[in-house]
């Protein structure tokens, strides 16, 4: 692609001093990744693997020991780079005494938006994250899922081209989680680049198109999700209202092919999550 990459991290190394005598802890060890505009990139790894540190380095909250980070070509250590990015930290707290609308207005003003434009943006975002009904409720009274959603809204307040989400669905119930994932899809549809990190692998699988696996500070595997998780040598065919006779015919067809082996036929399973959602969703917000 000719466009400037949304995120470009090159050989990022970050050491932390633990105590004066011991060796410094290498939290991130020569991590490189590139995210193109419009992608949804998931950085996955166990706790303590360096995901958050990488994100913070990208946001300039932490200075790299060596290597570089850039957002749309601008160096992360400069304030400029944050024009185009919105960040939702892990387990965010917002100022409890502000209402939802006031919180968004606060962040909007910080970004230089004001007046009519600010009002409209706040209203629009509240609709997007489905918190219109709670706009005048104090943040102190929000549930976890609502907090995440208002957090996502504040990340979007200045219409950034890149959104960084740190564990966006951690601790959120399946319904809220679903909502967030739907929001991420909406963002993708709007052309906004999403960079998220999580250790809830199934959820990552659902939304991301690119994935990087990070372990003990090193990037061990990276690429398109499809490519990574496809089991190369197997094929899946899903039929609806297939009669047993048809299935027997297909089976016979496969038997005739020398290299192909019939592995399994049966009813596909739904997931527990889908069952839960089907049973609990009534269209109301939590």
């Amino acid at each position: 692609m000719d466009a400037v990459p949304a995120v470009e991290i090159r050989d990022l190394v970050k050491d932390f001093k633990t105590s004066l005598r011991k060796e410094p802890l290498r939290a991130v060890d020569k991590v490189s990744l590139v995210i193109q505009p419009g992608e949804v990139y998931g950085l996955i790894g166990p706790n303590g693997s360096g995901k958050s540190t990488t994100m913070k380095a990208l946001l300039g909250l932490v200075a790299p020991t060596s290597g570089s980070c850039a957002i749309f070509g601008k160096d992360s250590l400069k304030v400029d780079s944050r024009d185009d990015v919105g960040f939702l930290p892990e387990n965010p707290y917002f100022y409890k005494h502000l209402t939802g609308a006031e919180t968004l207005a606060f962040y909007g003003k910080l970004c230089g938006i004001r007046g009519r434009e600010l009002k409209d943006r706040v209203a629009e975002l509240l609709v997007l994250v489905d918190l219109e009904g709670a706009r005048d409720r104090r943040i102190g009274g929000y549930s976890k899922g609502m907090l995440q959603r208002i957090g996502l809204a504040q990340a979007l307040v200045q219409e950034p081209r890149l959104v960084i989400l740190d564990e966006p669905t951690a601790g959120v119930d399946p319904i809220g989680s679903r909502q967030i994932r739907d929001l991420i899809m909406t963002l993708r549809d709007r052309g906004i680049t999403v960079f998220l990190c999580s250790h809830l692998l199934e959820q990552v699988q659902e939304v991301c198109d690119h994935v990087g696996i990070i372990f003990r500070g090193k990037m061990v595997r990276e690429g398109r999700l499809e490519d990574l998780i496809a089991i190369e040598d197997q094929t899946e065919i899903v039929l609806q209202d297939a009669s047993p006779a048809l299935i027997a015919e297909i089976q016979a067809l496969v038997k005739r092919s020398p290299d192909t082996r019939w592995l399994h036929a049966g009813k596909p399973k739904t997931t527990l999550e889908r069952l839960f959602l089907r049973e609990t969703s009534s269209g109301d917000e939590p």
Partner: protein
Amino acid sequence: MSAPNSRKLPFSRVRRISVIAGHAFTQLVRMKVFYFLAIFALIAIASNFFDLPQHQGSEATGSHGMDVLRLIKSWSLGSMTLFSVVFGISATALLLPKDVEDRTLYTILAKPVPRLDYLMGKLLGVLLLLFVSLAMMDVLMTAMLQVRTSMVLSHQQDMADYLKWDQPARDSVRFETLANGPTWGLQAAVAAVFLRSAIMASVALLISTFSSSTLFTTIVGFLIYFIGHFQADALGGGDTGTSDAMRHLSMVISLVFPDFQLFNIIDAIIQGKTIQLLEFGKLVAAACYYIIVYTVGSWFVFADKEF
């Protein structure tokens, strides 16, 4: 995209700082510690309304009246000093650690907000709150003083009538009483109280940039406040043959820590002295120097601090 372009305008910087300042203001105003301190100070000032059981019946002319006025002034200014210093230090001390702990700092710094703007916004929020509180206390004190001064004046009038004083005598006493009542000099004294607490707030800001503990920042802040007052005494009597090490230490202290001696003009004003506008301006400039130095220091520490 309006945001990136508008961000660079100088006025947008001011606006950004004022958003953070206004926010810090509302955050602090809601805190219980503020309410308690403010109400305590207001009650202390209002208590001047009640007569002290002294000198009753004797010395019923001028000097007793002046004494009461002086008492009101020193008591009120004392309460204001206590409130502003305690609040200035402790409120500033908790601002940064609270944001770090709540991780709201991340959300703010992830926006295109320069770190200096963030610091200045927080400091200005505290200063704004101090200013508003002291202004309210000033109004209360001035009102009390005005009432008292009128009482003293009318009492003096009665005595003068009784003793059949002529006009110059009456004028002389009246002039002196008015000089002890609410004057512009008194407002300058309140401004000096504000400036002193502003300096302490900026010191607390500096300490809080490298200390993550609110308690540590608060305690060190108070220590610096007292050292700032003792400095002159400690150094003034410094030729008592102290060791070289002590002399070097006290010199370092005098350079790094603020010297609040200049602000003792408050005492002079209570005793009825006046201060010229130019002199007051110089005091303001001195305070600004301190505040700027400490804020720049804070920025230096905070600029590449990692979270």
